[in-house]
């Protein structure tokens, strides 16, 4: 009877639970312990390796800087159609004035300039120049308000007008010298509804003074931008007569006067700063890069650019990266190939020598590992240069004429020679460890079966050493595709790799987004090749040893 129940349904453990869950429970402890053991390394790798890489890769699509720095402009610009050939409306220019004014107070406008400069040359200086001059625009209104009444000169009056009563009381009670926090600004509600733009601008100003500069708001004069906002608000002719709080008289007076104020024509004012503000290109670039995420870096990394009609190839003289990628792949293949050619016989000798001699020779193979990469590369500079050891020897032997010395360095040849030498151990070691496991009896068996030395090698030995070639090739190829120091030192201009360009964008041009996009493409190419290798050869066939 019990047999019958056991045979139907899942296997049961002694306590009535299913055997599977009981087994899982038993294994859980083991798994947990294994996890605990690797946890320190896992966390270390996550924090110091995976997270920074992920962050870097994210930069390749990240583009918040435009919309963060020019929030008003980009919002208004969304509806603008650049193809019509007309400049954006003056509201856009006014928004640009506000955005740049705030940005230059926060010193963010130069960063945005550099960012947009990647897409359109000249934008960087345009923003720097505008940042310096944008204050003049606001001062037109500031001066007129201050001329109208001394009231507008004083920061205390502004605070009284803009701040709520309770905040004003707190602010007066607050001791500048004490450690207590400055009471956060609160706007006066009537003013907020009467003069919305002024209130909003003053709030930004107050927040900036209190939190970013950490100054006493009572002692800071408002930005010229606030006066511009006040002008704009008053031109809307709000009903200020109902307001009875501090400065109501001055407000009423200003209300009456603004009609006669000198007016700032924002488009014209910007044109005066730089004619480029009246170029459709600049505005199109800002519009194209308004979204928070962009494919621009990636397009740039494959020699394309964004245009109003979608992605298009850059002109031939600006194309660089595809050529560099192809050169990197090609040279890595050549280096891998020469490592196989040079490393295979050495590994074979090592694997077939008596252990003692093999160990000695192995030390010679490993010797490069124990010297600094920089030293080895520098040694190659000495060897390969026009007046270097190799050329001298060749001239002395009469192989080349003295006036036609070989160019062995600062070109592709130099990179290939030096990198083959440097990466050779990575080919020899896996080859050796695989060949070591091929018993000599295979070759003997093949010969006893009638195969010549060559046939025995090619049909029997070589196929068994292929896993070693595969492992060595993957190692050498992947290492060389991302190699930086050696091509930088001996590659000149024609022998450099994509990695040198990435390094340039990371440390010199500071175009991290493009560097990240190039790096992401490189990573994808390597993973793609790895995948292809797995499909063709099979990753199981890769042996690093044993």
């Amino acid at each position, binding site marked *: 009877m019990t047999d019958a129940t056991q045979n139907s349904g899942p296997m049961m453990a002694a306590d009535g639970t299913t055997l599977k869950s009981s087994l899982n429970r038993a294994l859980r402890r083991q798994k947990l312990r294994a996890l605990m053991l690797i946890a320190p390394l896992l966390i270390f790798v996550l924090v110091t390796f995976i997270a920074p890489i992920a962050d870097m890769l994210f930069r390749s699509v990240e583009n918040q800087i435009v919309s963060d720095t020019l929030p008003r402009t980009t919002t208004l610009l969304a509806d603008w159609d650049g193809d019509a050939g007309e400049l954006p409306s003056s509201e856009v220019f006014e928004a640009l004035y506000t955005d740049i004014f705030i940005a230059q107070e926060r010193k963010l406008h130069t960063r945005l300039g550099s960012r947009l400069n990647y897409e359109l040359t000249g934008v960087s200086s345009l923003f720097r120049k505008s940042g310096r001059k944008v204050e003049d625009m606001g001062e037109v209104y500031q001066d007129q308000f201050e001329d109208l009444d001394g009231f507008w000169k004083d920061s205390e009056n502004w605070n009284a007008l803009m701040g709520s009563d309770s905040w004003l009381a707190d602010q007066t009670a607050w001791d500048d010298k004490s450690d207590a926090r400055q009471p956060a600004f609160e706007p006066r509600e009537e003013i907020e509804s009467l003069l919305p733009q002024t209130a909003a601008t003053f709030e930004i100003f107050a927040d900036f003074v209190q939190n970013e500069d950490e100054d006493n708001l009572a002692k800071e004069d408002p930005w010229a931008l606030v006066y511009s906002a006040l002008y704009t608000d008053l031109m809307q002719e709000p009903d200020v007569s109902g307001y009875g709080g501090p400065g109501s008289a001055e407000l009423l007076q200003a209300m009456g006067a603004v009609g006669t104020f000198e007016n700032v024509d924002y488009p014209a004012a910007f044109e005066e700063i730089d004619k480029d503000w009246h170029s459709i290109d600049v505005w199109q670039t800002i519009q194209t890069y308004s979204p928070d995420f962009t494919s621009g870096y990636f397009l740039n990394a494959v020699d394309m650019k964004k245009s109003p009609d979608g992605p298009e190839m850059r002109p031939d003289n600006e194309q660089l990266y595809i050529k560099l990628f192809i050169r990197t792949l090609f040279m890595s293949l050549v280096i891998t190939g020469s490592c196989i050619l040079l490393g295979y016989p050495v590994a074979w000798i090592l694997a077939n020598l008596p252990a003692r001699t093999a160990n000695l020779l192995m030390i010679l193979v490993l010797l490069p590992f124990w010297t600094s990469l920089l030293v080895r590369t520098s040694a190659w500079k000495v060897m390969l240069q026009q007046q270097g050891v190799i050329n001298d020897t060749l001239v002395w032997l009469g192989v080349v004429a003295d006036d036609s010395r070989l160019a062995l360095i600062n070109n592709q040849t130099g990179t290939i020679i030096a990198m083959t030498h440097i990466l050779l151990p990575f080919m020899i070691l896996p080859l050796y460890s695989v060949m070591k496991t091929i018993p000599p*009896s*295979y070759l*003997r068996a*093949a*010969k*006893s*079966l009638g*195969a010549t030395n060559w046939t025995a090698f090619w049909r029997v030995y070589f196929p068994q050493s292929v896993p070693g070639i595969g492992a060595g090739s993957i190692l050498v190829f992947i290492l060389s595709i991302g190699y930086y120091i050696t091509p930088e030192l001996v590659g000149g201009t024609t022998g450099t790799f994509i990695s040198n360009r990435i390094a340039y964008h990371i440390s010199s041009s500071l175009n991290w987004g493009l560097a990240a996009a190039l790096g992401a493409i490189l990573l994808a190419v390597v993973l793609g090749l790895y995948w292809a290798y797995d499909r063709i050869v099979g990753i199981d066939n890769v042996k690093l040893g044993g």
Partner: protein
Amino acid sequence: MADTSNADAFVEFERVQKSYDGENLVVKDLNLSMPKGEFLTMLGPSGSGKTTCLMMLAGFETATHGDIRLDGVSINNIPPHKRGIGMVFQNYALFPHMTVAENLSFPLEVRKMSKSDREAKVTRALGMVQMGDFAGRRPSQLSGGQQQRIALARALVFEPELVLMDEPLGALDKQLRETLQFEITKLAHDLGITVVYVTHDQTEALTMSDRVAVFDDGRIQQLAPPDKLYEEPENSFVAQFIGENNTLEGRVKEIKGGTALIELDSGELIDAQPVNVAAAGERTRVSIRPERVEYNKDRLSEDAHTLKAEVLEFIYMGDIFRTRLRVAGTDEFIIKTRNAPDVERLTPGQQIEIGWLPQDCRALDA
């Protein structure tokens, strides 16, 4: 032993020497001649030179001195792949990246045989070792015994007249080994091929071979058919190495009419057949097989010399009884008796007298 210049000889070693380091000879003056179709086993402890001889025959080692002839032609300077000798290796040496069929086809391919011929021969060879269903498998998917069958088939598939086997069954378990021993001998006889078989397992050597060459110290100590080797060892090494053996040491007292009278070191006298002793006074080592020792007085001749013995241990082994005795000063004297109804079972401590026929007791070199 040194029957050189034999007209029927198929394989011949003549005065072959081999040294690896230029100081020590691994093979010292090897002379051997094999007729066609013989199954010869080279038997010896490790380091005795038997494998080196095989490798010289296969062409993987060159003789330092001497001549190796195959079918009357000196092969000293012929590379291995032109010798046409089949070889089976201890670790099978099946090519792991090829299927069974590809492995078998390999020697035919390098001989540029047509595809249909190859297929026919491969199928036949696989059938020969009862592995016809395994053609598509990889060696790693086969058991040790199956791999060895394939290795055998591969060595035979190109129809060599001479096949060398280097301890081919060494890695297999006992039962499998016995089955394959039988199969290999049967195949060799059915195909009429000449086989040189190297082993350190004396049972294997005795059961399989037409003749056995016992190697020690770089020389053939004795070359004889198995029964002769066992029953008539020519020196004490062979006597010790082949089968179980009791040894008593002593001095020749006299040699008379084909029988030697030996005075053992313990002072007792025994009869023995003189093999390696020439004159009275020489030291000798007397060898008696455990199963030739008698303790039933009725079976011994009247005038036979007997020795007093004390039973130390009686081991029941099923088909036989194995008894350890103290005889003439040694505690390691073994006798074996068949488990038959009329055989007395000895008990430890029992005092008995033992003896043997003079021809079963051989006086060998000391």
